[in-house]
């Protein structure tokens, strides 16, 4: 497999976006449904093609686009993510009259994330970030019946363009200091105030993309009001691609290690502490997940702060390992919302009785996010903390482990609530005969219990499978990153 074939996985995302454009012109839910299913198959095939490409490298557009172990790894995760989210949205957002718009925006953003993971120059990084983010402004606002979704989208937008402008200014300073936009940046660049200020501004821009403290405020609002499928994507797609791009930018700057590692360590600690403390006080599952996402961004940065190759790999692995659990958790939120159960912590009391499989799945995700061995999340934590110790910042690993211990407080609470007896919520449990019991979701729609559709159930099964499979056979996770590096 040579040349342009390496770009085939990315091309499938583009084709998916084009197919989605046609969705609205197709009359009838059945035809639309077939197209979405075809797209899911297409993306899955793209993921397989990407796996075949493991270990190969390629350079395109005079270095602006790079296919290497990082980008292949990210493509695999993004394609699987795209397929899972598209499937999950089948009966939810996808059954809207706006389904075509939703899928188009979603796949465009996914394409942006994929290109971002391959970006070989600062120009491409900037273009790809914007391609990944601009559609998400609309996606956050997609729940048009709730005006709060516009509020969240506006805040997200304003913060995002502010951060983009800061990052672009940072890029311009870095360009001025080193004289090139090609990545990796020359490692022998003289340490100047211009370069270091540029790095600081760049880090701030990326801090926003991965929602690290103090650039995180858009996240809880956006997660709370948007469709769970959108939140699932936001929690993983742009972040994973951004961390790959950040690694690519920082990789070359070994001479400036002292400068940026201390800055990264600073926001890593603050993100972990802030996110975990904040999550303790949350009463709604999406907000809890949002604050925990801030903490998880902090863990990933711990690996980056190590400054070494293993820590950088670790940061990328971290987001991938975390992704299965967080996507799954948001799918559970989606099932709860469509089932009329609601997503506050009070609503999930007794879920273990009413929906045992959904509760078991959420338990798996929570355990994975704590970082218990034999679940995917453990390997992410393992690799970033190992990277930190090897990078000589063992104290950061200590802070990280203490934080993950602390996070058990609220993750464990979710598990506990689900397995409590009874519960105070008024939703009638699903009757044994399967007769639909009506209910009103937290968002005001009348929904039918058990009507979340098979798509999201299958997607949830995939998320559980990945969380456990990556936990038991982490080789498939590390393998895609390790082989081509000749390690």
């Amino acid at each position, binding site marked *: 497999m040579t040349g342009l074939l390496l770009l085939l996985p990315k091309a499938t995302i583009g084709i998916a976006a084009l197919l989605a454009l046609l969705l609205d012109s197709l009359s009838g839910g059945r035809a639309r449904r077939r197209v979405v299913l075809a797209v899911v198959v297409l993306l899955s095939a793209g993921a397989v093609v990407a796996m075949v490409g493991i270990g190969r490298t390629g350079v395109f557009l005079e270095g602006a686009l790079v296919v290497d172990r990082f980008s292949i790894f990210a493509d695999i995760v993004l394609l699987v993510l795209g397929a899972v989210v598209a499937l999950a949205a089948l009966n939810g957002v996808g059954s809207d009259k706006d389904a075509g718009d939703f899928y188009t925006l979603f796949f465009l953003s996914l394409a942006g994330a994929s290109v971002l993971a391959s970006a070989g120059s600062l120009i491409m990084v900037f273009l790809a970030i914007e391609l990944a983010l601009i559609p998400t402004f609309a996606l956050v606002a997609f729940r048009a019946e709730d005006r709060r979704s516009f509020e969240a989208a506006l805040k997200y937008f304003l913060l995002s363009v*502010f951060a983009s402008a800061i990052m672009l200014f940072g890029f311009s300073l870095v360009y001025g200091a080193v004289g090139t936009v090609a990545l990796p940046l020359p490692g022998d660049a003289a340490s100047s105030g211009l370069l270091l200020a540029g790095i600081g501004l760049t880090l701030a821009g990326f801090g926003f993309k991965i929602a690290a403290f103090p650039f995180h405020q858009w996240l809880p609002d956006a997660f709370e009001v948007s469709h769970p499928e959108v939140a699932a994507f936001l929690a993983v797609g742009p972040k994973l691609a951004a961390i790959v791009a950040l690694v690519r930018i920082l990789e070359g700057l070994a001479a400036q290690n002292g400068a940026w590692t201390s800055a990264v360590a600073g926001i890593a600690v603050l993100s972990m502490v802030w996110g975990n403390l904040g999550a303790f006080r949350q009463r709604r599952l999406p907000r809890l997940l949002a604050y925990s996402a801030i903490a998880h961004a902090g863990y990933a940065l711990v690996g980056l702060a190590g400054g070494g190759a293993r820590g950088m790999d670790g940061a990328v692995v971290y987001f991938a390992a975390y992704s299965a659990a967080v996507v799954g958790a948001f799918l559970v939120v989606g099932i709860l919302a469509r089932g009329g159960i609601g997503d506050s912590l009070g609503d999930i009391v007794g879920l273990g009785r009413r929906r045992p499989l959904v509760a078991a799945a959420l338990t798996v995700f929570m355990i994975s996010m704590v970082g218990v061995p034999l679940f995917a999340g453990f390997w992410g934590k393992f690799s970033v903390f190992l990277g930190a*110790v090897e990078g000589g910042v063992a104290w950061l690993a200590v802070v990280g482990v203490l934080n993950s*211990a602390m996070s058990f407080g609220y993750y464990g609470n979710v598990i506990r609530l689900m397995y409590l007896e009874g519960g105070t919520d008024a939703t009638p449990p699903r009757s044994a005969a399967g007769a639909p019991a009506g209910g009103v979701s937290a968002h005001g729609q009348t929904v039918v219990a058990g009507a979340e559709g098979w798509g999201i159930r299958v997607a949830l099964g995939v998320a559980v499978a990945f969380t456990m499979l990556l936990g038991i056979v982490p080789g498939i996770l590390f393998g895609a990153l390790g082989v081509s590096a000749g390690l």
Partner: protein
Amino acid sequence: MSVVLVAIFAVPLLVCAALFVGAAVASRRGEIPTRGWGRLAGWISSAGALTSLVLAVTALLSYRAGVDVSVSAVWFHVGDLEVPFSLRLDGLQAVMAVVVAAVAFLVHLYSVGYMHGDRDVSVYFAELSLFTAAMLLLVLSSNFFLLYVAWELVGASSYLLISFYFERPAAAAAGKKAFLTTRVGDLGLLIALFAIVWQTGSLDYDAVFAWAATPGFQGAWAVAIPLLVFAGAVGKSAQFPLHVWLPDAMEGPTPVSALIHAATMVAAGVYLVARAYPLFEAAPVSLDVVAYIGAFTALMSATVAVTQSDIKKVLAYSTISQLGFMMAALGAGAPEAGVFHLFTHAWFKALLFLGAGSVIHATGRQTVQELGGLVRTMPVTAWTFAVGGLALAGIPPFAGFWSKEEVLGSLLAHQPVLAAALLVASFLTAVYIGRLFFLVFLGGPRLAGDVRARGHESPWVMALPLLVLATASLVSGFFGAGFLGQRLQHFLSIGAAGAEPPGTPAWFTALAIAVGVAGLGAAWLGYGRSSQRAGEALGFDIQLRSTLGRAYGVVERAYLVNEFYGRMVVGPLVAAGRFLWLGVDGRVIDRAVDGLARVVPGLGGLVRRVQSGEVRDYLAAVAFGVIFLVALALGGLR
């Protein structure tokens, strides 16, 4: 042959998976779990544990016969680091595996009776099987990484078991506390693991121990690594200052306490130190730390145990104390003695817990004030409990005597001061176990008219394990004299030494016995006589309380360590969380910006406006973060 080691832990793991799937399928079909189903689950998992036991004994015998049963495969690569999935068996591991599997089997069996009629028993047995599998994996692993994975799994499954009664807030809190406290220790183990990888590039026991024996093992890491490993052991084995979780963990079902908090999981810390002994030997100062922490814990917990009125709390503090004995022996350079004590303790402490469970099951009471005279209605429980108590008190010829005598002897040779401290602890041990036995089983019922508190004998599935364990508590001490043709301590073959420990002087052995007898005698004087008459049982406790005044209260509340942690650690964390929440996540940053503004007067007007609106709080925070980052980055300009 090599399949055996995998099968030992895989069988309970499969049982666990099968039970979980069964429970999920049953609930999916809307079937309420029936008693029959729960009982079946109990028998299935008991059969699984029995299979593990048979396999473990087989493996031990084949190890004795010199057959190589080790398993090794590459699990995965992390960059240049090869993470192996490897199991092996040496004397120490073989003995541990048999102990774990045997106690696990007996506890499974006992649970069939104990959990009879409780809800969700299939889930209980699934969790119990998961724990058994993880614990067996822990002792069979031949590298530090797999050990750590199993270590965490053991912690997670014990969390599930402790908080099995989720709806009881105390049970849920206890599970959480156990998990969090032990994780503080696990943190040390994890950092040690990273340091080992970093320094040697290998995780295999043999490779790491070979490295520890080289002159290259020096400097700060050479001291830090064993101490960090010990931190893990301190957490798991409930040693001071991380012992606070174990008494609370008694909220779990009593058979769980017997398995996890007496015989296996808490012993994992002792096993870890014995396993990693070459690392400790290379840094003698770390051994001193182990010895002093162990002896201090032993003495401190023994005093607390004397004052407790909850049967399970007495046994919990007793366990902490006995683990301290083991640690002290390890620290004194006699790992064989420490593990020998672990071996005997596993039987008699499991016996005591199951006996206590039998009492609780029959009467629904677990404080000594409410119980009494049960020897008449529960003879099997009473007499087996007496055997366990005598073993714990160190009265010959029961098992505890032989191992405790070796522990004390080894300390006498190396750390006479600690030997004296442990003698005092031995005396207190005899006092508290005597007190417990006299109050619960002798005398008459303390609450007049309380029919249920009179108790009844437990069914055979519960009585059988008691009898088996009582037998083991009697004979396991003799293994110190001979086990498969050699002394058990030799069979273990820990560390580099393996030399015969210095014989204990006869006068010291006599003294140790005398201390035990004296302790029991004191307990008889304080509680045995008075308990003959109903209603006056705790007269001596009241007398002690009035004599000692506030000191007694402090001891009774376990030296206020919990209160100290509550005020110093938990309180500030909760306050920080509340501050953050009330501050609605933007106000705090405002305050920081505010402070900055006071330093830079011109910004004052700006800050007032920043505080006024929501999005602008966020934008200000971003700006603040940019300043922070650029400042940090420019700080690197030298």
